[in-house]
Structure formats: structure tokens, C-alpha cells
């Protein structure tokens, strides 16, 4: 029994060691997002609390904590309370399999990429539950839009993941990164990277695909009835999901923790630093897209997902498979 507890406490320690930096990073990334957005529009952004306004998110979190949580009388209370908890939990749970370096991961499971994919496809439940339980028109419309959007873009993300898997021959995230030692997958699979990036924007409900919360039409979509800490949890979950998508993108296409400059001063830099830099790079792209691109119309969004991305990634899948088969590059039983 004692050894079980030893294992348990060891795991809890590891989980805390991962979760606290992730949560801090989420707070920082909210600040970075607002800051980049402001700079593009020639504003200053949050710059008052702390150096460069770095503590703005902490101040916001404090404010949310002391606000009253209002639960609408006609809402379905249990599901209403459960929705932000589900969003937040699912956004954090996926980090268990993300490798920050070789053997630097909480759980190195065989089906890591499927696990991330499954957890990110469960993320839609937080939004549906929140929208339905609010018992109000705008949240319901927002949640239905969001569900349709996320389900459609998951399809193309799934096919893009299969493209990468064909080149790797394993579902393990560490194997996926190590397979990119020679060349990062962004170079042979560049069109897939572009589609992955755009689908990730849609999957995390980021602008230009933020139709679930389109403030011009739906007030704030599924978040309309939420207040105080529950709203903050939705917010945190959303940004944790964005970070997760950036991490997934850097593992699938940008070589994870591998160093891009494999010579003396740079190969001494520890691998998590490279991984974090790659995540930050992808997040900067996310933030810039938010500032630059206007919002899509809903039918255009669906058309893009089903009529352009899905056929294109399917064709690319066939091309990748044929190329690997013809030149006998298929990684069969390589492990």
C-alpha cells in the first residue's frame, strides 16, 4: 500500500510541476494577446499593472474572484455550473501527454496524438452545455454554431494528423518528434501546416472564426449568462486550448523540442526552451491573425471547412501515401 502512495505522490508532484507553469503561461498569454492586438492597431494595450502591464491578468483574475456568480433562475443549474468546469478540465488534461523534451513528459502513452485529438474534440461539450443550460436564445444559438463549427473542422484536422502519421509510423508523440530529426514536417507538408493552422483557429473559436461569440450578432454567444469566476474559467479554458493547439502544431510540424540550429552555442540550450519558443511563435501568429483578419460569415466558414479543406487534405493524403509507397519510404515497423 505504501508504495502505491509513493507513486501517487510522485505523480501528483509531477502534475503540479506541469500545471502551475501552464496556468501561469495562460495568464501571460492573455496579456500577450491583448498587447499584440493593441500594437497592431497602434494602441498601447494593458500597460499599467506591473512592468509592461505583465500582471494585468493577475489583476483581472483577482477582480473575477471577488465578483458575484449569478446563476439565472430559469437555467439548468447543475449543467450550468458544470460547463465551465468541463471546459477548463479538458483544456488542462491534455497537457499530460505533451513532451517537453526526450523523457520529459508525464505520460508517454502509445496513442498520444489520438488522446490529444479526443480531448480537444470533447472540448465542444463545455460550450454546448453552457449554451443550453443558460436557457436563453443567444447562448443557445452560439453553442449550436460552435458545435457545428468544431465538428466540421475536426475532420480536416484528423486527416492532417493522418498525413503526419503516415510519415512517422507511430502514434506516440515522442516518436513523432524524433522522426523529424532529419527534416521538420513543415517543409514536405507545408500546405498541411497552413490548413492545420487555419483549422486550429476554427477549432479554438479564435477570430476570424469566432462566430460562437460574435459580439455583433450574439452578444457574447454561450458566455452571455456567465459572470465572475465561471466566466473566467471559460476564458482560461479557451486560452489553455489555444496553447494546446499551438503545442500540437509545433509537435506535428515544427519538430517539437528539437533544436533548429544544431551547432555549439545553440545545442546547449535545454530542449523545453526550444519547445516553448515554438509554441510562442505559433501563438504570435494566432494573435496577429486576430488583429488583422475580419470575421467570416457562417456559410463561408462551413464552405471553407467542408468544400475546400476536406477535399484538399484528402487529396494531399493520397499524394503523401503514394509518394511514400512508390519510393519505399513507408516507416513500417520502424520502432
Amino acid at each position, binding site marked *: *500500500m505504501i508504495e*502505491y502512495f509513493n507513486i501517487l505522490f510522485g505523480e501528483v508532484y509531477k502534475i503540479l510541476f506541469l500545471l502551475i507553469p501552464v496556468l501561469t503561461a495562460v495568464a501571460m498569454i492573455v496579456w500577450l494577446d491583448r498587447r499584440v492586438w493593441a500594437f497592431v492597431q497602434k494602441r498601447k494595450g494593458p500597460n499599467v499593472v506591473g512592468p509592461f502591464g505583465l500582471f494585468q491578468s493577475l489583476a483581472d483574475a483577482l477582480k473575477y474572484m471577488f465578483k458575484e456568480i449569478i446563476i439565472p433562475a430559469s437555467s*439548468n443549474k447543475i*449543467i450550468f455550473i458544470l460547463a465551465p468546469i468541463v471546459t477548463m478540465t479538458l483544456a488542462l488534461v491534455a497537457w499530460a501527454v505533451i513532451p517537453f523534451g526526450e523523457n520529459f513528459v508525464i505520460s508517454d*502513452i*502509445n*496513442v498520444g496524438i*489520438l*488522446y490529444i*485529438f*479526443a480531448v480537444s*474534440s*470533447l472540448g*465542444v*461539450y463545455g460550450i*454546448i*452545455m453552457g449554451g*443550453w443550460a443558460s436557457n436563453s436564445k443567444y447562448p*443557445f444559438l452560439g453553442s*449550436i454554431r460552435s*458545435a457545428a463549427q468544431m*465538428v466540421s473542422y*475536426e475532420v480536416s484536422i*484528423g486527416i492532417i494528423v493522418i498525413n503526419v502519421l503516415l510519415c512517422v509510423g*507511430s*502514434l506516440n508523440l515522442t516518436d513523432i518528434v524524433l522522426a523529424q530529426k532529419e527534416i521538420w514536417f513543415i517543409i514536405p507538408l507545408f500546405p498541411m501546416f497552413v490548413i492545420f493552422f487555419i483549422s486550429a483557429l476554427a477549432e479554438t473559436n479564435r477570430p476570424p472564426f469566432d462566430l460562437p461569440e460574435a459580439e455583433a450578432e450574439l452578444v457574447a454567444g454561450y458566455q452571455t449568462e456567465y459572470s465572475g469566476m465561471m466566466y473566467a474559467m471559460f476564458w482560461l479554458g479557451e486560452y489553455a486550448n489555444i496553447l494546446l493547439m499551438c503545442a500540437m502544431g509545433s509537435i506535428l510540424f515544427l519538430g517539437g523540442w528539437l533544436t533548429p540550429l544544431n551547432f555549439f552555442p545553440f545545442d546547449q540550450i535545454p530542449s523545453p526552451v526550444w519547445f516553448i519558443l515554438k509554441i510562442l511563435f505559433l501563438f504570435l501568429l494566432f494573435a496577429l491573425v486576430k488583429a488583422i483578419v475580419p470575421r467570416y460569415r457562417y*456559410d*463561408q466558414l462551413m464552405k471553407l471547412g467542408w468544400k475546400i479543406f476536406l477535399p484538399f487534405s484528402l487529396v494531399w493524403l493520397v499524394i503523401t501515401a503514394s509518394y511514400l509507397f512508390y519510393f519505399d519510404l513507408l516507416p513500417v*515497423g520502424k520502432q
Partner: protein
Amino acid sequence: MIIHSIFFFIFSFIAIVSAVMVTASKNTVHSVFFLILDFVSISCLFIMIGAEFLGMMMLIVYVGAVAVLFLFVVMMLNVTQQKNEWFASSSSSSHIPMGLLISIIIFFEIIVVIAGWKYKTEVVNSFPLGINLDVTNTHSIGYVLYTDYIHVFQISGMILLTAMIGAIVLTFRQRTGIKRQSYLKQISRERNESIELKEVESKKGVKIDV
């Protein structure tokens, strides 16, 4: 092993309780949420016996896609109308004999399968598949599915495709008189076919034919 069995009992308890709640809960949306909980706990059981690929597929396909569509349909129903119906109410109690009959048949089928699995091993495992423990179970499923069972696999894919096309054909309606954006039409417009200069004579105006 103790911890393992404790987790097994936790997950199977949740699975059974939520399966009962699917039929017993008053609110249809709650039923779907219990169904999702059931799927999740069953995929946990799959992972516990080492079938991690099946467990993840269960999560992705059933919870991530099928149950979302269930929720869609159920949420569109008028929930307030059904709020006060309990499964033993007068209007739905007429279904109980039929339901009992079906559940008795299913129960006996399960008994036959379990008894056969226990006592007539050679009948059930008529095609023993050599399980190779060196490869991951994603690999071993792939090896079996794409070699021995390739035709069955392809045929099931074709059946799904037919069902998909059938569903599209049944629900697709070409409506007339709606405004639809066509990028090709917009791009291929020329100046001289959309703009015309007209000399307007004084006190006569222009007749525009639409």
C-alpha cells in the same frame, strides 16, 4: 492489483448507473449527458484492459461526434413539453411489454455468449488471432484489419458511404428564390456587362428594365 480492481469497479459502477439513468431520467438532454458519461467510462474500461486504441476511438467517434449529433437533435425538441413525463406515466406505459420482450431477448443472447465463452471456448474463438505483444495494439489491429479482413473492412466502408449519400439525398432540397453567393460569378463579372451609360433626356427620365 488492488488499485487496478478498485478503478475497475469505480468505472463499471459509473457505467452501469449512467446506463440506467439514460432511461430513467426525466429530461431528455440529461439522458444524452448520461449516455456520454457511459461512453466515457466504457472507454476508460477499454484503456484499463490495455486496448488503448479502441478506447481512444470510442472517445473520438462516439463522444466527439455521434453524441454531439444526438445532443443537437434532442436540444431541438421542445423540452418543456416533456418535462413532466416519467417513464412509468400512462402515455408511455404501453411500450413496457414490448420493451420487456426485447430486453429479455437481449439478456438471453448475452447469457448464451457468456456461457459459450466460458465453457465452449473452441466455438467462440474459432479464428484465434495470434496476439503479438511486441507491437502496440494500434499496429496489431492494423495488421489484422488490412490483411485478413481487408474485404470486410472495405465493404463496411462502402456501406457507410452509401448510407451517407442516402442521407444527403433524402434531406437535400433545392430551394428556389434564395440569394446565394457564388464566388465564380462575382469574380467573372465584367465591367461592360454590368455598367451601361445612358443619355438621360430632360423631362423624360430613363426606363430601367430589370
